[in-house]
């Protein structure tokens, strides 16, 4: 039988160490909504989302109450709209109208975000996908809850550099279109290499075409819990360090698995995966950077950071995999800047640069995330940063992503405040030298060789 110490341990994790379930994300296929009539398509999409997700928020709140575990976000991901709207949309404006429909549907069911305003263009773009991409600035400035993602490359196909070049411009335009709110639109826009079909985290969640009609995916969190556990083994060997992370990740993930199972039963929708990510928040003590410091660094970014992060990421996966029947999504340690107080402190102290963050993305899940850069950064430079990150993902057969925010009207040394879970960030300097001639080359970077791995 459960004893009082176990109960206290769990409740302390929840109360003092910010243990929560970061998101229950309901993936909904919109493939059966497709028609060539835009008005009808909008109606179909609205009806499908509001019917399938009708009870999502209510069930989420019930589970929160009964188990005493906060579920911070309830979200929806849908089939990439670049596919769904291909037949009906004749212009970027038409696509932006679909974004409005997604926003209305998400508002009607009360979720925090809806993802899937997306295009998968890792090898080539259809006309519709190009139109969707061109509509992103308008879509993200006119909606509140819609998140957008574009897959630009993969290990099997290489990198679509035409799309990379276009996304540099689109990110700038999105920043411009939302400059009144510190270019917040860019916080809802992410580009990927090797994007997973079942990611529950925003801004990159979409419901892949390999998925069933509807599916429940859950993202856990828990940097604060790992950090507290590591404080108790300060100075111990790597073996003890790794075992502690694994055990803690196991416990955190079991909660995610429980919540996912319950949500699945109560909603009558199959369980998909648990995403094992350590997702930080700006709350004090809920930081991945703080874990790196606890492992033994003065600040994130110091020499040793990449090794410490590699260790952390691997142990989280090893501990979490056994705790869940199906693991998927991004699964690893997130290293966003604005959403992690320890990362922000490291940037302010001069310890953490974009180049070091790029190195860290080689061993963690995701990539350059929530990094504020000067608003006058050239579109080609942004494309160059994207290309670098895509190359890391492509060659290492992992998911990488870029979510950077060129804050219009602000420069290095200034701060930007996004609010809520998105946090705040100091604007970081970008290498000033041009890559325009590189980015302006047409076509794609071929897929890498899958043998002779060194």
């Amino acid at each position, binding site marked *: 039988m*459960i004893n009082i110490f176990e109960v206290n341990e769990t409740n302390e994790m929840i109360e003092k160490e910010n243990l929560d379930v970061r998101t229950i994300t309901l993936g909904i296929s919109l493939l059966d909504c497709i028609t060539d009539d835009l008005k009808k398509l909008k109606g179909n999409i609205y009806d499908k989302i509001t019917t399938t997700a009708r009870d999502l928020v209510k069930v989420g709140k019930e589970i929160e*109450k009964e188990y005493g575990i906060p579920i911070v976000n309830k979200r929806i991901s849908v089939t990439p709209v670049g596919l769904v709207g291909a037949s009906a949309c004749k212009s970027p404006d038409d696509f932006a109208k679909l974004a409005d429909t997604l926003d209305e549907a998400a508002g009607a069911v009360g979720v925090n975000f809806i993802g899937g305003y997306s295009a998968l263009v890792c090898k080539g773009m259809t006309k519709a996908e190009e139109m969707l991409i061109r509509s992103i600035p308008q879509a993200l400035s006119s909606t509140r809850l819609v998140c957008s993602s574009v897959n630009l490359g993969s290990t099997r196909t290489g990198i679509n550099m035409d799309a990379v070049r276009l996304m540099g411009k689109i990110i700038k335009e999105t920043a411009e279109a939302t400059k009144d709110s510190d270019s917040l639109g860019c916080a809802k826009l992410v580009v990927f290499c090797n994007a997973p079909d079942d990611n529950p985290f925003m801004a990159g969640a979409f419901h892949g075409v390999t998925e069933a009609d509807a599916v429940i995916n859950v993202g856990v969190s828990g940097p604060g819990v790992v950090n507290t556990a590591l404080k108790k083994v300060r100075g111990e060997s790597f073996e003890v360090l790794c075992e502690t992370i694994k055990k803690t990740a196991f416990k955190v993930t079991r909660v995610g698995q*429980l919540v996912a199972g319950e949500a699945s039963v109560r909603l009558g929708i199959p369980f998909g995966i648990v995403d094992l990510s350590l997702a930080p928040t700006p709350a004090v003590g809920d930081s991945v950077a703080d874990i790196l410091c606890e492992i033994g660094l003065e600040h994130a970014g110091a020499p040793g950071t990449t090794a410490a992060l590699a260790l952390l990421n691997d142990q989280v996966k090893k501990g979490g995999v056994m705790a869940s029947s199906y693991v998927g999504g991004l699964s690893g340690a997130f290293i966003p800047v604005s959403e992690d107080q320890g990362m922000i402190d490291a940037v302010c102290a001069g310890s953490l640069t974009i180049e070091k963050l790029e190195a860290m993305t080689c061993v963690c899940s995701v990539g350059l995330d929530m990094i504020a850069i000067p608003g006058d950064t050239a579109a080609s430079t942004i494309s160059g940063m994207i290309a670098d990150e895509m190359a890391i993902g492509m060659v290492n057969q992992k998911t990488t992503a870029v979510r950077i925010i060129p804050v219009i009207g602000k420069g290095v040394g200034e701060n930007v405040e996004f609010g809520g879970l998105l946090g705040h960030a100091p604007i970081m300097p970008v290498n000033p030298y041009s890559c325009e001639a590189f980015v302006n080359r047409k076509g794609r970077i071929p897929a890498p060789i899958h043998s002779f791995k060194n």
Partner: protein
Amino acid sequence: MKKTIITVVGKDTVGIIAKVCTYLANNRINILDISQTIVQGYFNMMMIADMNDSSKPFGDISDELAQIGEEIGVVIRCQREDIFKSMHRV
């Protein structure tokens, strides 16, 4: 049978257990096990309860217990046992 864990944490005072048990009895909630300890000067109690015969929804019981806790200056929490079993049992 779905079991529920009720925890009471706070400054020790007269009648905490009495109040909680009276509420549970009035709502036909059966107590299966009680353990209690003092941690760093704080009263710390855990009950394992069976709510199957209670007609009230779980959410209401949880809110009303929290309310009683506020009145006597302790924190009372009511959670399904599964969250603890998931975390601490393989």
